[in-house]
């Protein structure tokens, strides 16, 4: 294990930034989100939950796909991916265990056949440095999904305490990154890390949501869960905004749109939300016309549909962002507690 003193972190960032891009939680206008590092930016590694999750780095909220340039009767198609061929490799720094697991969930969608090459380009250019949690809060429930918040994987795993950032290499990519910054790192830290992990684990066990029971959420119960009368009561206060979907690290729906530009037409995609009335709207209208149906879709997808297609892997990682951010305080935990059977009482 390696380590670096906390006050020298800026040197580490600068060193990485010399040859690779660096995305890291940065505080801007009061809120912390992943952004490009630069001299003078306020890095906030201590922040437990960035508002937006790091999925933005591989699957941006809006992303151009192609251009259609028109001249007279000719249309020229410009493949924007050509520009990405020389995408500068970048480092995603400070990813928490839940968010790292979420990337695995996204990989199953975007890297399965047919491969989403836009996502793949970015994913392959990234080295992920994870950061273990040391002060989880009440809305956290990653343990329910089998995630160990004190030992995330990734290319490099780090731990942060009052004085040092500890650094452990996991993969070839991680080795290459470590070689780049090796002058700044010194040996040591096993004991400190082990003791931090132990303390954190005692907190994790006592978290209010640590014992949620998911056993009822499986494909066999699909019909029963779908028909549950509780959906009405649960979705009643839902505003139909997209906050939960846009702060969620695993939500992956998008829409493809065209915009007319001075040069022709630009085709782009942007995040979509199953909470919206025009979600998956077709010429014949929409197949989910009430907020109840939309609300149900979101949670059924996370807890039943996705796992049924991915060997039981839930597409919720327990990051708790929706617990914190829902304007009317509705969230997946309330759904699990209501429909998950009596073990959740």
């Amino acid at each position, binding site marked *: 294990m390696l380590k670096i003193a906390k006050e020298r972190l800026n040197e580490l960032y600068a060193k990485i930034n010399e040859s690779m891009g660096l995305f890291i939680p940065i505080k801007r206008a009061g809120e912390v989100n992943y952004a490009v590092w630069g001299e003078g930016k306020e890095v906030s590694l201590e922040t437990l939950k960035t*508002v937006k999750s790091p999925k933005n780095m591989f699957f941006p909220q*809006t992303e151009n796909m192609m251009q259609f340039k028109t001249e007279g009767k000719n249309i020229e198609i410009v493949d924007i991916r050509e520009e990405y061929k020389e995408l500068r490799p970048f480092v995603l720094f400070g990813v928490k265990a839940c968010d790292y697991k979420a990337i695995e969930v996204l990989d199953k969608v975007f890297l399965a056949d047919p491969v989403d090459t836009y996502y793949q380009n970015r994913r392959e250019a990234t080295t992920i440095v994870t950061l273990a949690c040391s002060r989880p809060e*009440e809305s956290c429930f990653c343990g329910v999904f089998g995630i160990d918040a004190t030992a995330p994987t990734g290319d490099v795993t780090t731990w942060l305490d009052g004085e040092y950032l500890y650094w452990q290499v996991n993969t070839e990519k991680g080795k290459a990154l470590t070689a780049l910054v090796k002058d700044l790192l010194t040996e040591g830290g096993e004991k400190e890390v082990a003791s931090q992990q132990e303390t954190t684990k005692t907190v994790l066990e006592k978290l209010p949501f640590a014992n949620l029971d998911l056993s009822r959420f499986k494909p066999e119960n699909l019909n029963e869960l779908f028909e549950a009368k509780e959906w009405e009561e649960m979705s009643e206060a839902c505003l139909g905004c997209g906050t939960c979907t846009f702060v969620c690290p695993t939500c992956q729906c998008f829409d493809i749109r065209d915009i007319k530009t001075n040069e022709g037409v630009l085709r782009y995609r942007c995040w979509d*939300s199953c909470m919206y009335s*025009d979600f998956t709207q077709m010429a014949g209208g929409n197949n989910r016309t009430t907020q109840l149906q939309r609300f149900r879709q979101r949670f059924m997808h996370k807890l039943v549909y996705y796992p049924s297609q991915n060997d039981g892997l839930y597409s919720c990682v327990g990051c708790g962002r929706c617990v914190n951010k829902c*304007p009317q305080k509705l969230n997946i*935990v309330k759904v699990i507690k209501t429909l998950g059977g009596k073990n959740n009482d």
Partner: protein
Amino acid sequence: MKDVEMKMLERAKALLESGEVARVIGWKKGDFCFDPAPASFETVEELDNFVYDYFCGANLSKYLIQMSKKEGKTAVFLKPCDTYSFNQLVKEHRIKRENVYVIAVECMAKLDIEKIKAKGISMVESVEVVGKEVKVTSAYGVETLYKPDVVLTKCATCTKTHQVKDEEIILHERPARDVDRFEEVAKLEAMTADERFAFWREQLSKCIRCNACRNVCPACSCVKCVFDNPASGIAAKANDDKFEEQLFHVIRAFHVAGRCTDCGECSRVCPQNIPLHLLNRKFIKDIDNLYGEYQAGETDEGKTPLTSYTEGDAEPNDVMNGEAK
């Protein structure tokens, strides 16, 4: 606050039992002490989960658009600021007034859990308010905070009083306050255009276009929003593009100008904490200065500043040059 809650519960039970109302809209307990959710209660048994505390900040008036169309009367608990939104919705014929029974409840300023957490407190277990002191008990110990530091932004400058009530539950009179809600707007106005642009650019660049501000807003009651209409040529959804962010917020603020009651829900729900109320307050301030003081939602009838005029109104170019009074 506990005594107010008991009184409310008692009234809700009586109204449901007597059959006077078919449902009551209030708040139900969450998983923590700070996450009560809006809910409707149709039976006395359901009221077991009823709660009213310092975290019931949500404005319930917009739910009445749907609820007042249902069979039977709906009773609703409205805080002072919520009654303005209610009046405005009645005025715009969005709520059937005769189907609603309004119980005006005291507010005493609601707390913002995000502001409490921002003080470095997590794992909150209980919160107790005594006068201007907020005692927060967490897994890491007990801390006492100064209440004005941790109230919702909308409560910080509120001087509102109940505008509509069929009955009221007020056990503690609130002292009158002397606050200037336009202070921050005036600060921005005093900046140069470059500084203002930089300020809003930084704030709006956080926008994730989740539409929470629009969907929670009682003044945003269009059946179909222009931003949800693909045929309008404005791509809605998640366009976190610089122009689209400005377009959305300008159009939204303008559309509610003269109708916005300054209930502050937009800023409360914003996941990125963009001070959206400062957009609406600019319109309110301008309207007050140019066309006489006007508070939307004070009554449920009459014209708004943007649906009326006088022959001597200020000229736009004079307004722009700061010459209009």
